[in-house]
């Protein structure tokens, strides 16, 4: 069961972990050591976060039974917009989900909520996953056109390791919101067959902010069931099938005027994997997948609203990919084709106070079809022992169509000449040079990427944004957003000390953002106005992070992480939701099966904020966390006991990414037990 996050910031550590993962955990023992090493070269371009499982030796560095968001937060590239206690929206390099590609095992999934209350990460559980690969900028374009990068969440599976039956049960409690967590997993693995099944249940009441005030509508309940199974008929060919069923009910969003009574996802796939006999080809995998999401947003729990409304949404995606990996002399390459079709539909029904009156109905996502088909190729070229080059290029065709005449006519109110469909071509390309010498690793990268507007940006109809209190109207006439990026990193690593600095600069032309139109009348009651998505000539983002780690006195590890980002538009005005200087420092102690960690997280006052977007200055804060864990072995069975406290001094605070400044949880004492057999 998921217990660990890698410290994640250090390339060599990551490489080592990939080897551990590859060889020990994921049964890829059929790959020889050389392949693993080559694989690690590829992955130095990305960051891998180990979500781990009960069998993982390095389990105890993270809060047990944490959410997927907690794990991903370990990456300096990732942060989350929080609208409550549940379903945080990932930011990659300071950019929200329109500009990134989040996939589960390469599968594209589109959220069904017009208010971004259901990012893809909300439809999985840590028990479903083994690791997350985070790739910044154009290094993350393999699974689709992106600006900010990609997060690929990899499914956990036993593989063909002949370990027989294994299982685990786990339970946890958290004080701040009376969260109860129960989970169980069962695995069977032989040389030709494996199957993993797991279930997870979480139930939380409202949490208390620092100081003790209850944050209303922050409760949630979530069930997740998943299964993955594989059958291998010879050493070189096997088939895997995977399903995830995730259902959240009664989810409160304290930062929003509405809650979610149901968010349900079914995610299924079948994959065929073959290890070609040709020496030059190392792996070929082909997958078909389907997922369907139903998301019911309503305000039935809220006592006082200007008008009652229901906002259900549906999203269905069918897709495929085929990925081929190979080597040639000093080249390590991969090539893939992928295609998917998504249908997004969302409605809004408002119920007038006068029951005699007809309901007010509109399509907020007018039955939008998105067809994407692309090819992607990447090559890693070991020029010399010290110098490695990476080059990638992808092309895609992106086709939007409105399948509902009601929806088309609605948008034609704003865009009289609008056609029902639009086709775009998208190009993504990246390159990186990496130089390694002695303790040092340096890299320099360039990238160019394009993306199409999201469903909301292109076709949204009166979508209320509670942050700036504007109704947003999509704009189907926008051109592609284009990003030019340059990134560099430097790292040093010796026996006891490591440090790494990453910087990336994005110049984004035709930057898509909502701009107020005072001539338009807002639909929602008592709000500031209407914004229509437009394109700025350009905007610029600068993302920086520094990580340091020092080991001393045999068992102690001091680490620190600092993140700073800056985002400006063409008038040098601040972009919204940009992270101020945030520093995390920690001290860890490990001895045998005992582990302790103390962590301090601090952020400066937010100097760069965007009043136009409804932001105000977020004050500085500092919080303290403490975690202890002890592992017991009883014969071959293992028990991990963890206790800890977050926000130890019960600070009342919110971060720059807390929607409408909703207060973060106060002191949270947690305990969990994992029992594995």
């Amino acid at each position, binding site marked *: 069961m998921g217990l660990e996050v890698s410290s994640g910031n250090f390339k060599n550590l990551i490489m080592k972990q990939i080897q551990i993962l590859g060889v020990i955990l994921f049964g890829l023992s059929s790959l020889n050591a050389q392949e693993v090493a080559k694989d690690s070269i590829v992955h130095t371009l990305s960051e891998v976060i180990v979500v781990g499982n009960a069998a993982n030796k390095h389990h105890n560095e993270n809060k047990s039974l944490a959410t997927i968001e907690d794990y991903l937060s370990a990456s300096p590239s990732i942060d989350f917009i929080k609208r409550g206690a549940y379903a945080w929206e990932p930011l990659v390099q300071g950019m929200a989900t329109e500009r990134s590609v989040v996939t589960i095992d390469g599968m594209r999934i589109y959220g069904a909520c017009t208010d971004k209350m259901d990012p893809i990460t909300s439809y999985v559980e840590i028990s479903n996953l083994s690791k997350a690969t985070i790739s910044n900028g154009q290094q993350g374009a393999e699974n689709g056109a992106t600006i900010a990068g990609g997060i690929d969440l990899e499914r956990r599976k036993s593989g063909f390791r002949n370990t027989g039956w294994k299982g685990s049960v786990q339970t946890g409690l958290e004080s701040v919101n009376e969260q109860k967590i129960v989970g169980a997993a069962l695995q069977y693995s032989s040389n030709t067959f494996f199957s993993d099944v797991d279930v997870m249940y979480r139930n939380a009441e409202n949490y208390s902010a620092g100081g003790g005030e209850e944050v209303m509508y922050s409760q949630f309940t979530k069930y997740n069931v998943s299964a993955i199974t594989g059958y291998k008929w010879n050493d070189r060919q096997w088939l895997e099938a995977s399903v995830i069923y995730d259902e959240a009910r009664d989810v409160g969003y304290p930062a929003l005027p509405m809650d979610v009574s149901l968010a349900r996802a079914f995610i299924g796939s079948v994959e065929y994997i073959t290890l070609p006999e040709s020496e030059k080809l190392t792996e070929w995998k082909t997958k078909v997948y389907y997922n369907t999401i139903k998301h019911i947003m309503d305000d039935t729990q809220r006592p006082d609203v200007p*008008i009652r409304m229901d906002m259900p949404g549906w999203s269905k995606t069918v897709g495929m990919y085929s990925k081929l990996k190979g080597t040639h002399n000093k080249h390590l390459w991969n090539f893939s084709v992928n295609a998917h079709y998504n249908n997004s539909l969302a409605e809004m029904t408002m119920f007038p106070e006068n029951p005699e*009156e007809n309901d*007010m109905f*509109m399509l907020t996502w007018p039955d939008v079809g998105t067809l994407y088909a692309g090819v992607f190729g990447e090559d890693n070229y070991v020029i010399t022992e010290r110098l490695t080059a990476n080059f990638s290029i992808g092309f895609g065709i992106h086709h939007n169509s409105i399948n509902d005449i009601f929806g088309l006519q609605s948008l034609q*109110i*704003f865009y009289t000449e609008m056609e029902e469909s639009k086709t775009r071509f998208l190009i993504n390309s990246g390159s990186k040079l990496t130089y390694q010498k002695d303790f040092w690793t340096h890299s320099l990268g360039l990238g160019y990427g394009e993306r199409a507007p999201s469903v909301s940006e292109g076709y949204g109809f009166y979508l209320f944004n509670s942050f700036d209190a504007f109704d947003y109207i999509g704009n189907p006439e926008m051109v592609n957003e284009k990003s030019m990026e340059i990134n560099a990193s430097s790292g040093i690593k010796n026996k006891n000390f490591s440090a790494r600095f990453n910087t990336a600069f994005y110049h984004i032309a035709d930057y898509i953002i909502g701009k107020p139109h005072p*001539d338009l009348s807002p*639909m929602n009651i008592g709000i500031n106005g209407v914004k229509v998505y437009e394109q700025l000539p350009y905007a610029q983002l600068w993302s920086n992070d520094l990580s340091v780690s020092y080991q001393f006195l045999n068992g102690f590890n001091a680490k620190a992480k600092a993140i700073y980002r800056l985002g400006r538009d063409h008038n040098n005005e601040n972009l919204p939701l940009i992270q101020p200087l945030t520093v995390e420092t920690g001290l860890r102690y490990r001895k045998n099966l005992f582990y302790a960690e103390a962590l301090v997280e601090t952020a400066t006052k937010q100097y760069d904020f965007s009043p136009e977007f409804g932001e105000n200055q977020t004050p500085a804060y500092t919080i303290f966390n403490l975690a202890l864990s002890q592992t017991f072995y009883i014969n071959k069975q293992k028990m991990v006991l963890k206790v800890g406290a977050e926000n130890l001094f019960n600070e009342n605070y919110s971060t720059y990414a807390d929607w409408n400044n909703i207060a973060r949880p106060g002191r949270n004492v947690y305990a969990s037990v994992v029992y594995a057999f």
Partner: protein
Amino acid sequence: MKLFKFFSLLAIALLFSCSSDDDNIDNSINETEDLTLVKNIENNQHTLSVFTENGLFQLGYNKIYFQIKDGENFVDNAQVSWKPIMHMTDMSHSCPYSIISRKPNTETLYEGYIVFQMPGNDLEHWELTFNYTINGEDFTVSENISVPPSDKKRVNVFMGSDDVRYIVALIEPTDPQVAVNDMTAGVFKMENMMNFPVVDNYTLKIDPRMPSMGNHSSPNNVNLMQEAQDLYHGKLSLTMTGYWKINLQLLNAQNEVLKGEEITDTNEASSIFFEIEF
């Protein structure tokens, strides 16, 4: 099965070719399929079958169709005029109405419109009289008709700032959509108790609002202007279903406001308006 279809088509083709060969109007043709009979009005000689789309006379604008039947045969060559009269307790008056013409591309139908600006009640009622001439012979027929009050406002009667009494009636959309709808209205003035001609070169400003939803408006509406010296046409944007109040302002040819107020933060509605609910 295919053979059957073929013969069916053949049969239909034969049927149609027969009817078009016939010079007399075949009383089996049905040109009122999409219409509903309001009532049959009879005199000694003829029956006038009066139709509207929904089978009712409504307060406000009514598109009216009728057929004249002599026994079993339709009469297609009558010269018809009509006169709607409101019999009030103390006086009588008419209302805006069109001339009558034969409906194009039909064999049997006559058409015209009437704008009833007030409903009937127990003491006051509308009477509709048709005067027509067939082959030089004059006929008349008249009948009291029922015009009930309506729950949605489709007609406004008011005194303009120029001391002229106006009648403004909603004609289209009859089937409103969440879309940019074509909007049509009739703007008439009361010349005297019996004459209500269309006024020329005025402007009817519209501002659609949803009072139940913060009184918000919609974009890209086009004020109504007169076309071809007759009715007024514009564009009406409705961004969602539900109850819409179409606030109006009537401007004369010199762009002076004769009636109606602009909607502002302090003024939620105009004194003249239409109501649409769908």
